[in-house]
């Protein structure tokens, strides 16, 4: 049977309200307390609560490091398959405590955790991207509903099963997009959403718009004739044969290649690995994407100081922003160390 350790506050342990909020960490081995009863029922024969940890909300938040250490010690001792905290509903300090301790259990003990709270609980915003946080009602009247989502999610985590999309499992969207099959096709869902929007009724978008990073351009290069210029491309130009096997879409890597002594990219020496456009013209003459020829001329004419003798390249076709960012974080310092003053980024 799977093992669960449950965390609750003094209120849900029936010890007392605000006046008892400084109640220190207490462990009740083999005991199911308060909301634990509902979990026990929901778990059935699949899992058991091996211990309940009770802690006052003030005690936790005012003695954060001490409380955390004490609780982690206990959890470690029982080495459960999953850790459950709350649900905290709209109790602010309780929600923060649940999120904090779940995060610590996951990070420091590698044990999966789940909590639950009301969407406006400050703990939700702080931890929903780190800990599976089930969305609950704002008061304990919603206990049944909360447990009906938290318990199956806890079991899945304990069994290391794949976790479905937020709307299926009931957790708050956590920044990780998960695919699933809807019951109606996309066009039907679009028509239904449109009818709601037309009638000024509430509707739920399937993809809330993200906030984008904006990069402010650097000041202009003062004297190009003394500047070292580098070429970087997401157009997939690689030495013929694509030696590092950069993928044609959603690239997981970038290439660093020398163009020392190269005045012109030819059909025999370079090609594109990019899967997002007709490769004929780039393969005929890769300078069309990575203009080495033009920059060499400018170098000879003294218009630029020097063309950097390496170029960095990847395929920008459907490549995750996180990957692109990681690539540049790796190679940008190298260029900087080599005295590159400016970079021409070419895309396709």
């Amino acid at each position, binding site marked *: 049977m799977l093992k669960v350790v449950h965390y609750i506050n003094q209120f849900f342990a029936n010890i007392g309200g605000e006046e008892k909020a400084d109640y220190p960490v207490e462990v009740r081995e083999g005991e199911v307390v308060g909301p634990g009863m509902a979990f026990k029922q929901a778990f059935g024969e699949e899992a058991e609560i091996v211990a309940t940890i009770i802690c006052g909300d003030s005690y936790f938040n005012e003695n954060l490091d001490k409380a955390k250490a004490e609780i982690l010690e206990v959890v470690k001792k029982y080495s459960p398959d999953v850790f459950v905290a709350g649900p905290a509903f709209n109790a602010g300090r309780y929600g923060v405590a649940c999120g904090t301790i779940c995060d610590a259990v996951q990070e420091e003990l590698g044990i999966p955790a789940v909590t639950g709270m009301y969407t406006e609980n400050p703990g939700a915003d702080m931890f929903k991207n780190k800990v599976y946080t089930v969305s609950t009602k704002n008061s304990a009247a919603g206990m049944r509903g909360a447990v009906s989502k938290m318990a199956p999610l806890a079991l899945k985590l304990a069994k290391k099963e794949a976790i479905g999309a937020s709307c299926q499992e009931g957790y708050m969207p956590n920044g990780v997009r998960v695919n699933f099959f809807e019951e109606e096709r996309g066009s039907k869902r679009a028509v239904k959403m449109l009818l709601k929007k037309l009638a000024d009724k509430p509707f739920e978008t399937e993809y809330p718009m993200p906030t984008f990073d904006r990069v402010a351009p650097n000041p202009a290069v003062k004297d190009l004739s003394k500047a070292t210029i580098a070429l970087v491309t997401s157009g997939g130009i690689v030495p013929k044969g694509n030696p590092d096997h950069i993928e044609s879409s959603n690239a997981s890597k970038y290439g660093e290649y020398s163009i020392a002594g190269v005045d012109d990219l030819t059909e025999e020496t370079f090609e594109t690995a990019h899967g997002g456009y007709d490769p004929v013209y780039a393969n005929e003459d890769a300078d069309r994407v990575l203009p080495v020829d033009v920059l060499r001329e400018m170098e000879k004419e003294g218009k630029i100081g020097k063309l950097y003798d390496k170029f960095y390249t990847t395929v920008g076709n459907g490549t995750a*922003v996180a990957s692109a960012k990681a690539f540049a974080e790796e190679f940008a310092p190298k260029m900087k160390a080599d005295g590159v003053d400016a970079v021409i980024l070419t895309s396709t």
Partner: protein
Amino acid sequence: MKLEVGHIFIKDIQFGAESKIEDGVLYVSEEAVKEVVLEDEHIASVKFDIARPGESVRITPVKDVIEPRVKVEGRGGVFPGVISKVDTVGEGKTYALKGMAVVTAGKIVGFQEGIIDMTGPGADYTPFSKLNNLVVVCEPVEGIKQHDYEKAVRFAGFRVAVYLGELARNLTPDETKVYETYGIKEGMEKLPGLPRVAYVQMLQSQGLLHDTYVYGVDAKKTLSTIINPTEVMDGAIVSGNCVSACDKNPTYVHENNPVVHDLFEEHGKTINFVCQILTNENVYLADKQRSSDWTAKLCRLLDLDAVIVSQEGFGNPDTDLIMNCKKIEAEGVKTVIITDEYAGRDGKSQSLADADAAADAVVTGGNANQVIVLPKLDKVIGTLDYVNTIAGGNEHSLREDGTIEVEIQAITGATNETGFGYLSAR
């Protein structure tokens, strides 16, 4: 404009001495269709195969999927300006062979052909696994450039579809659906008080093997325009593109556009489905601005209350999608947009290349970067030679045991952005 579409159900396809449709079975004379394909001097040889739902068959690399149709009454013929002469289609009577498709496949054009598995987990992701498919595998003549080869295969597919469609000309359809739209004034009189809704379809037109044709005209050379939704049922829009398999619209999707069909379902009940607006997805900023300006202007001119906007492709066209959405909303016309996502294999990256607060109603076809393992299947139609280099594959995709690990973007139709499929994400 009123179009009756007669459905002729095809339960099975078999090769036979003579091409004919009998008791729901399509018999295909290989000799006859071979002749149809080899009319084009760019094609050196052709092979045909049949893939049925549930069979242990993988088709790859897939280029286009086409539903055979024939115009039996009214002006024009199917695929006007492409196969039939230019004439306005969309009224009268058309028969469609339902439950089957012509699938063109063969040696790769670029990187962006797809996979159709007829069974297993991959089959769940492609709508075309549910059809009886006549697969046309074309080998090009030597030395041909990709774009000429693409064109040859594109036309070969249409010719075969038209040839098969003709077999149904004198049959009696199993069922008939009627679609009717009205003139502007007529519609307002017939459907007073109903919100005026249109469908804005963005056509892939980035060029360099990313093209779509409207009445034979290359969409990247067009201004945003109006079309009657019944016209697309006669093949007024055809695919000529090789964008990632998951979210390009094969010709089959244009013929059976699900937004058109689902808006027709509500037409006369909750909405007045006024028309379809076509716009493109060109790569130059000036083109993007012009096209989205015109789209918004048309929405205003038609006094629309709301539109559904569908996208094709990803990345660069995300900017067209957001421009359209923003400008249409700014005209006071409500929008719902349909797109798909490239959130990375871990699902943690931004899903779109552009965003705006105006896009508050989004339907998603799912994250195309999701990784799937496709089992080894008994038979491959086409070739596995390109699995490692198609969009969604990598150097390790094809494993020694014959299984394939790819992103679902390699699967034809997996994250379609006209809402053709059921996949979504949160």
